[in-house]
């Protein structure tokens, strides 16, 4: 492949108007609720009004008898489908879970029954007539409730959904912290967030004959939904086609189907009629999966010069009842200090089950790390007595510090947070601000400046199996038009524009001549859709490489036809040009007509047509860096925060379309402003949602978001095109930038706890020297009643003696399943016992590896090092009993996974 000269690029880097806008501005988009199929029925759910309890009975008779009602379904009706609910990683969810509640309800809003009727009005009428008798139990709502209360799921040992890091204190690290000149501790709390795409969830499902299921669904990626549904339904002979043309935002919520979508799909299969379910806003705010609700205590030690020595984080994340993947959020720790130089870091991280809606992704799912770190740095600056700029300058990872590897093994080669900070400071005059701030304070006005810096991993493929590369299928049609079918998918990202920019440059055609089709799993290749700021990097790379392949073919055909050398051929303005012979130029259409229709005129042996495809897998990690500043004024009479200025200085590499880049940053920042000041999907002590409408779940309005200013660095990444992802960054760096500004403004009054949202009422307590509002004590706290103590886990007998009988029973092959956070991993283990020494081999899809371990009683232990997804040591501990085996595998910072198995 020959790379075109840079001068050939005309669209990458330009603020090209979006191709999507024409249809969206005129009401001609195609969203899921716009799909109307003949015979289509409408669904409404009966949902649990209690957070926790058992279902004594469900009486559907009256509802079923209503006119226009076709069915009232409960889990008993859906059970025969045998659906397996899957996590985002496509493994079975860790707890028993069914599309509709099966005997127990685990959160307010849990779907209990489904009414199918002629229209939504009738369905809601009938839903209100379904009588469910519940036996209510005390709900586990908060993280404290989860720590102290009864188990949310009967089939788990405790409420820990996921555990990573070191449970026991690391003595060496603790010594570093304790002995440092400055130890700074920051405890923060992030409230629960509702992703709140303007288009709620929804699905229209219909069987097409016996062998095809057509699913229109609003989602982040139709191919992933098709993959998820194929595995979840597991019906041989049934093809799943998923279509999602226009999607009204996702922000992590719509990664894959969940209970409601699956129930509606099963209803369509059961009734053999198309079924539509469109989530209403009250369902969306109260029963859809949510995000954040985290607590972290971060400690960091500094030397006398304010340089980092060591740090430790203790982190907890509310997973709700049915997370879309039980999660202790390893990325939080991987990236917490990745932009900085720090010698030592350790953590413990727990995800907790509770009787609340499940955890879903939300823009920058690990964003708490930047909030914790950057607010801690400002606190440290105040505590140590140095400037917030200076403490970052002394600790940020600069070009001179690279290449290097963080304590958690993240390689850094081309991150630029320090450069972003310096570029930021060229446009934000900090000394001038300090003078203005001092003058304002003298008048009783409180201005504050907040700074933050960070890096973010973008465009990942290959490190998590479900996050694959992206495919571009490209053709120049006989008409001369360029058509690409892409595996990327837009929920507002503008990929139909940005991908066209990449392709137009390679083929030298006007952007109007390029059409991008996406949004249909029956076309193009597999891709996981939006997530992890990946589409520009990976889809863009695929588009460029496919374009280059196709350009090469056009040149080869043209060179043959025109008796020129391929090097003399160039493509521009939709034409093929021959160097030095302008009269020889041909339109792409002329070349295409020959390429498809006149095989005899092609070079010998060449495939007809002008088509190419490329599946692009980027380097493992592509980092985006940024530093932001914002200036606020806090009204000391009301506690209201006015944002006066906000400057973003980011390095997302080569920008395909700066307007799209800035749109992504701005959208993320607006959501950050919502998180810090306005939004709160709180639940009361009984687990009832307190924000059920957009009146109470307060999204930012135009008056809450300032004009943003942008500074762009453009350090090309190592990915094709030099792109870096930018979808999530604003939502990651925005919160600490704003929190730091507020804290700076109110510094004369004292420290501002990082306990989001920072409502006017909370900020007034700082201004007035009143205590910060306390959170209610858990109903399961000892002050209320004795906590339930789970029966202690059976302890393996500490017998050193070797029992030959057991050893004989261990030799040979065993089928094992390792329950990792990314889904179950099947393996086969071969053991050979000799005395107390065990040798063996572990075979998995990724390959096989030998190990040596020890036998003690009926317990075998061994360690083995792996390099994927990271260099970690796995510590296995298995107990054998007859033909079954169980135990655990300690996976370093990935926590501990259960192992179960049987004789092969």
């Amino acid at each position: 492949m020959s790379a075109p000269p840079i001068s050939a690029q005309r669209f990458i880097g330009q603020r090209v108007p979006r191709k999507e806008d024409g249809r969206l501005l005129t009401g001609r988009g195609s969203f899921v609720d716009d799909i109307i199929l003949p015979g289509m029925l409408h669904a409404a759910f009966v949902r649990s009004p209690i957070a926790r309890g058992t279902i004594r009975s469900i009486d559907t008779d009256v509802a079923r008898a209503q006119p226009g009602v076709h069915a009232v379904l409960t889990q008993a009706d859906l059970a025969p489908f045998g659906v397996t609910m899957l996590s985002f990683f496509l493994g079975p969810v860790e707890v028993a879970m069914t599309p509709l509640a099966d005997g127990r309800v685990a959160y307010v809003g849990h779907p209990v029954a489904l009414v199918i009727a002629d229209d939504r009005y009738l369905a809601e009428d009938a839903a209100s007539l379904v009588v469910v008798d519940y036996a209510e139990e005390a709900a586990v709502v908060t993280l404290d409730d989860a720590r102290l209360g009864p188990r949310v799921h009967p089939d788990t040992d405790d409420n820990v959904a996921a555990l990573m890091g070191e449970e026991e204190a690391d003595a060496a690290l603790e010594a570093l912290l304790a002995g440092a000149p400055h130890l700074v501790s920051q405890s923060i709390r992030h409230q629960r967030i509702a992703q709140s795409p303007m288009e709620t969830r929804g699905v229209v499902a219909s069987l097409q004959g016996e062998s095809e299921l057509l699913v229109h669904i609003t989602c982040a990626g139709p191919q992933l939904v098709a993959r998820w549904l194929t595995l979840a339904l597991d019906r041989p002979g049934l093809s799943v086609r998923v279509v999602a043309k226009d999607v009204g935002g996702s922000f992590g919520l719509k990664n894959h189907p969940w209970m409601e979508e699956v129930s509606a799909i099963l209803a369509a299969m059961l009734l053999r009629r198309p079924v539509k379910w469109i989530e209403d806003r009250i369902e969306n705010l109260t029963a859809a999966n949510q995000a954040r609700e985290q607590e972290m205590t971060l400690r960091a030690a500094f030397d006398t010069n304010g340089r980092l020595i060591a740090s430790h984080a203790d982190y907890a994340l509310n997973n709700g009842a049915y997370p879309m993947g039980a999660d202790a959020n390893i990325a939080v720790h991987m990236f917490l200090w990745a932009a900085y130089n720090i010698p030592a870091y350790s953590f413990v991280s727990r995800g907790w089950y509770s009787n609340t809606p499940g955890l879903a992704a939300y823009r920058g799912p690990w964003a708490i790390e930047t909030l914790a770190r950057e607010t801690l740095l400002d606190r440290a600056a105040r505590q140590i007595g140095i400037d917030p700029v200076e403490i970052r300058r002394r600790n940020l990872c600069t070009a001179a510090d690279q290449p290097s590897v963080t304590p958690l093994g993240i390689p850094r080669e081309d991150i630029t947070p320090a450069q972003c900070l310096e570029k930021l400071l060229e446009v934000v005059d900090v000394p001038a601000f300090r003078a203005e701030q001092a003058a304002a304070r003298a008048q009783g006005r409180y201005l504050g400046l907040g700074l933050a810096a960070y890096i973010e991993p973008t465009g990942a493929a290959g490190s998590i199996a479900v996050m694959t590369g992206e495919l571009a299928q490209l053709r120049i049609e006989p008409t001369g038009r360029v058509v690409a079918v892409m595996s990327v998918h837009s929920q507002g990202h503008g990929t139909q524009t940005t991908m066209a920019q990449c392709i137009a440059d390679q083929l030298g055609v006007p952007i109007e001549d390029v059409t991008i089709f996406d949004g249909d799993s029956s076309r193009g290749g597999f891709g996981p859709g939006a997530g992890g700021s990946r589409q520009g990097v990976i889809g863009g790379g695929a588009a460029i490489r496919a374009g280059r392949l196709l350009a090469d073919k056009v040149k080869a055909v043209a060179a043959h036809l025109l008796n020129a050398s391929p090097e003399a051929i160039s493509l521009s303005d939709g034409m093929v040009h021959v160097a030095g012979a302008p009269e020889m130029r041909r339109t792409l259409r002329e070349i295409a007509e020959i390429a498809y229709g006149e095989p005899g005129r092609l070079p010998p042996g060449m495939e007809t047509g002008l088509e190419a495809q490329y599946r692009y897998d980027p380097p493992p990690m592509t980092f985006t860096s940024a530093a932001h500043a914002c200036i606020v004024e806090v009204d000391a009479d009301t506690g209201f925060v006015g944002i006066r200025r906000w400057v973003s200085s980011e390095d997302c590499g080569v920008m395909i379309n700066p307007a799209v880049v800035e749109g992504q940053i701005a959208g993320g920042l607006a959501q950050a402003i919502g998180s810090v000041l306005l939004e709160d999907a709180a639940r009361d002590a009984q687990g009832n949602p307190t924000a059920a409408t957009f009146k109470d779940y307060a999204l930012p309005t135009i008056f809450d978001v300032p004009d943003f200013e942008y500074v762009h660095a453009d350090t090309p990444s190592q990915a094709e095109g030099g792109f870096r992802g930018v979808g999530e960054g604003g939502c990651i760096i925005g919160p600490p930038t704003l929190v730091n500004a507020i804290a700076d403004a109110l510094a004369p009054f004292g420290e501002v706890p990082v306990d989001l949202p920072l409502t006017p009422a909370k900020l007034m307590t700082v201004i007035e020297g009143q205590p910060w509002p306390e959170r209610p004590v858990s109903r399961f706290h000892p002050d209320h009643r004795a906590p339930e103590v789970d029966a202690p886990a059976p302890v393996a007998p500490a017998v050193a003696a070797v029992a030959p009988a057991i050893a004989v029973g261990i030799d040979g092959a065993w089928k094992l399943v390792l329950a990792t956070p990314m889904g179950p991993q099947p393996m086969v283990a071969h053991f050979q016992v000799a005395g107390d020494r065990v040798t063996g081999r572990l075979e998995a899809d990724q390959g096989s590896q030998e190990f040596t371990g020890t036998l003690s009683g009926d317990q075998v232990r061994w360690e083995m090092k792996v390099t994927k997804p990271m260099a970690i040591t796995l510590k296995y501990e298995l107990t054998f009993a007859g033909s079954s085996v169980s135990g655990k595998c300690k996976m370093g910072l990935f926590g501990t996974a259960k192992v179960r198995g049987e004789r092969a």
Partner: protein
Amino acid sequence: MKPAPFDYIRATSIDHACALLAEAGGGAQLLAGGQTLMPLLALRMSQPFILIDIGHLPELQGIAPHGGGLRIGAATRQADALVNPLLAQALPVFVTALAHVGHHQTRNRGTIGGSIALGEPAAEMPATAVALGASMTLRSTRGARTIAADDLYLGPYATAIAPDELLVAIDYPAWPADAVPLFREVARRPGDFALVGLVGALAIADGRIERAGIAWFGMGPTPIRARQAEQALVGQAIDRIDVQAIADLAIADSAPFDDGHASAAYRRSVGRRIFANGLMQALDRRLAA
């Protein structure tokens, strides 16, 4: 979110609407602008048997001089009142308060009477009616009666309007054209109900306050007249007023509570501050004029 079934009836006159109300015996709901009622219907929090639409009735529209003051027909659209020259001239503080009601789009359908009859304690129109001393004309098949705004509000969304009664018009007494307007509202976002709000007017003659009408909103279960503050203000020279002391009196009459958006302590503290500042700035403006 779809309404439960009901019968929709488009009333042909006030008398017709009253007859329908009487007949329904409490099972009916009046629909005017619908900007509050419609979500309640969609949430099925309101499930009337009969919905009586009065929004279009000409008898309920319009703004006209009446008894020295202004009479506003209950179904007058908020957007129309907002640009009404009579109101702008006679009751500028009413217009200021009205501009804070909902949003442009809801004011295009929402009515003055609807907002007043709903009795949302954190809304602008009820408190404005109380502050300015408005009175309401109610009609039913039993006849007509007039009730003072002071007597209208019983609790959150609870008014002295009987189930068979219809709010026909609101009379605002005359205030001097140069009355000092008082308006402060603290709300999370534009169009949100107030966390704390105050509205009122001060009539001034010869440098002294001769009449004061001030009410809180968002500071209790109903709009609340700052009666002690009003009494303390009347007769005072406007360059001699201790605004902090007056604010303390105003707060003493409030009865705020905690909710999901703010605490009672916040409302009390911020209320005192915005009252004192609002009063001081209003008086300063007058003194400078």
